[in-house]
């Protein structure tokens, strides 16, 4: 099946800093989503972005489908940004409608 790798696995930032999270995937995709899992375990939708660039406040994301990677940018980080960020993909061929998740990036934002 499709492989999804995320980097870095862990990240510690000072409040106000910027960061870039990366997601590499091994095959063409029909769907790519970024999620934030907060400390209470809730998966929060950040972006639905199988290709192109989107922005939502301090967050933005870019997916380069032809090169099989996606980037999530966090600017002016806040302590509430702490948690785990997951990239999840649905393969274009043979994967049905299920999402395959990466192992996540654990982000901690400190004062």
């Amino acid at each position, binding site marked *: 099946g499709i492989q999804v790798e995320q980097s870095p696995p862990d990240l510690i930032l000072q409040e106000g800093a910027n960061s870039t999270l990366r997601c590499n995937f091994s095959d063409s995709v*029909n*769907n790519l*989503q970024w*999620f934030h899992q907060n400390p*209470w*375990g*809730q*998966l929060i*939708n950040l972006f*639905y972005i199988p290709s192109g660039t989107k922005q939502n406040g301090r967050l933005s994301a870019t997916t380069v489908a032809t090169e099989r990677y996606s980037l999530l940018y966090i600017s002016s980080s806040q302590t509430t940004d702490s948690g785990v960020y*997951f990239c*999840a993909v*649905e393969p274009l061929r043979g994967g*049905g*409608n*299920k*999402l*395959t*998740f*990466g*192992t*996540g990036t654990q982000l901690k934002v400190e004062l």
Partner: protein
Amino acid sequence: GAGVSQTPSNKVTEKGKYVELRCDPISGHTALYWYRQSLGQGPEFLIYFQGTGAADDSGLPNDRFFAVRPEGSVSTLKIQRTERGDSAVYLCASSLYPTGSRDEQYFGPGTRLTVT
């Protein structure tokens, strides 16, 4: 509007017992998914429903696991003869479109299952 809801939020059961976990998807969403998340891992797919039928159950680990969605809305995940290895957070998701364009999935808060 209301998001995906799951009950119970926590379930503790003894090894060998039967459990049922419930998922109420977003109103109007035709597709429903179950995932399982172990500590420190990303969620892993279990089963996908399109309407009332299971379109893909390839992620169910064995025949102790079964899920139903009799009226195309609420779904129940059933686990027989629970084992300690079944302990995990069980997540439910739903999406508006069944296939192709814009099948963005939205997740519920999960049910934390602990088998003692």
